[in-house]
């Protein structure tokens, strides 16, 4: 049972480059999320999706874009990488509409912008 799968696991980018972080889940969850984790800061929500074709901004969306063409996939795109985007990125998914549904996390993508 794969759960939430993120690729790549590690990446180094130069300032101004672009890339897409991939996320796929095999649990048929409607809700998917992207977070960034910075040291001592917990996780901050970047974007989320409540179903295919529907996305919305979280707390820290600037510099990122997302799309959700299928239930399984929720890629995160960085268009013009900046050093402030150096972070660990986590994708998560959850089922149902209640607030008590736990989120399932991938193992993360560690991204450095130099």
């Amino acid at each position, binding site marked *: 049972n794969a759960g*939430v799968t993120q690729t790549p696991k590690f990446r180094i980018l130069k300032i101004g480059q672009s890339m897409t972080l991939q996320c796929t889940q095999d649990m048929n969850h409607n*809700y998917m999320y992207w977070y960034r984790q910075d040291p*001592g*800061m*917990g*996780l*901050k*929500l970047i974007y*989320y999706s*409540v179903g295919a074709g529907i996305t919305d901004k*979280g707390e820290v969306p600037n510099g990122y874009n997302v799309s959700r063409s299928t239930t399984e996939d929720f890629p995160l795109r960085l268009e013009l990488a900046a050093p402030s985007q150096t972070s660990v990125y*986590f994708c*998560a998914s*959850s089922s149902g*509409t209640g*607030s*008590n*549904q*736990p*989120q*399932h*996390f*991938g*193992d*993360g993508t*560690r991204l450095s912008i130099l």
Partner: protein
Amino acid sequence: AQSVTQLDSHVSVSEGTPVLLRCNYSSSYSPSLFWYVQHPNKGLQLLLKYTSAATLVKGINGFEAEFKKSETSFHLTKPSAHMSDAAEYFCVVSGMGYKLSFGAGTTVTVRA
């Protein structure tokens, strides 16, 4: 609005001794509360959740947490620490809908 404060950024215990990780929360709604654990270079794994049923919640790996509304607390405990418990722990609150608020995390070190 909702928020979480983890009162200790780092906790160090000896193997076999109790572990206590403290969490206070604030929420405008009846909250759902979670504890997640993160081992190095891994994603977050759910330890336990409180969703307005029993106030004492049992989770995986011998952890449990007690919801105290009067104190707005949700502290995590384990009677006897194991070396494998060394990790970072996050207290999380969920209010209306699906938005989660994460604490800053508590790093647990276990001494042999």
